[in-house]
């Protein structure tokens, strides 16, 4: 039920009382509402669904997942 894609915050501003950010998805920039993740900063990656950021992507955890993948590769 949920198409949500990771993107990088490149700027933030408050617009009409709504916390908005410009988020880059591989270079394609969309305006995203940050009201659900107000603590996110420029440079963070966020997971975005229907134009709203749902959470900050934990880059350490993402690294760990990829390390697990690498381990699997080295055993195969």
């Amino acid at each position: 039920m949920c198409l949500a894609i990771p993107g990088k915050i490149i700027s933030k501003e408050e617009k009409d009382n709504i916390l908005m950010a410009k988020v880059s998805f591989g270079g394609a920039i969309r305006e995203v509402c940050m009201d659900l993740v107000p603590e996110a900063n420029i440079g963070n990656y966020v997971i975005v669904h229907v134009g709203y950021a749902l959470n900050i992507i934990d880059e350490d955890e993402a690294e760990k997942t990829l390390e697990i993948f690498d381990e699997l590769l080295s055993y195969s």
Partner: protein
Amino acid sequence: MKYLDEYRDSATIKAISDKIFGIAAKDWKIMEVCGGQTHTILKYSLEELLPQKITLIHGPGCPVCVTPVEMLDKAVYLSGLKDVILVSYGDMLRVPGTFTDLLSCKANGSDIRMLYSPLQAIKIAKENKNKKVIFFGVGFETTAPANALSIIMAKKENLKNFYMLCSHVTIPSAIELLLSNKSTAIQGLLLPGHVCTVMGYEEYYPLLEKYKVPAVVTGFEPGDILSGIYLLIKQLEEGTCKIENQYKRTVHKDGNRHAKAIIDEIYVRGDQIWRGIGNINNSGLKINEKYSEFDAEIAFGLGEININEKIGLKYNNKILDESTLCIAGEVLQGISKPIDCPAFASCCTPEYPLGAPMVSSEGACAAYYMYVKKKYC
């Protein structure tokens, strides 16, 4: 794209597949709950990378498919009213109600607009102050906070012409129904990663306790799904029963507290009809009466009118019967697969759908039609 491409790497995926083959000793039936996960499984033919011992059962995670017919009928009725702009997510437009669908209403002159985000609904309301803008708000817990924020924004902006026709469904009770159904015999669950991004996964512990079914919170890329399956099969083979989190880069155990607070503020929980399944207790969200001024059902008095009578006249009372051939309910509950349906790809196609899972591109039947049908014929 970062945080996507890494999880689509062919060497990595082959390695995980090999590990699954290595540990799967017995037959197992596991369910991926979310329609987005089903989509990935079919689009990337992930079943080619799994041993035959593992059966994937597709869950009811297609919010468009399970939106009750009555809500579609209400949307159709509202879209036909004077000075109304109905705004909706794209896939809802094709789903048939009792008499017709929103796309046909649009062809007939109703002002129906597709949106990608609730932000657009607010924009349209601001730009059309002389019209009543009704946002057909559907979705699971993932979409609920974004939809709810549109009401908060409307209140902040003092918009008097914005309404939501609300039809949200929530996952845990639906999973309980499926687990209690002996005919599905689900032994493990891949929990929906983006629902859990919002809600966390603590609410699934009681289910685990009661039904002794292990679960893994799983993402949506092929690498995520295969890792999720690997972790689940490992638990099943070892006889453990816990919730693991494969999607740690996005999901925390307690979810997103801002999002949960907004859901609690705007909505109330209650029973909900799931199209094709029936009523599931405590599985829906409706607008809190504190915000009733934005509730389309109240603002337009939908409780007091016989919708079908009103719109039936316009369509000569020609009802689009929920076909007796259609097994949408069984597909949504994972009891049958779309290819088990005698109507699949014969008299039921995306052009001539008999049920909602064939209409919505998120639905299992449509996904099978697109990615699997031609494998069999």
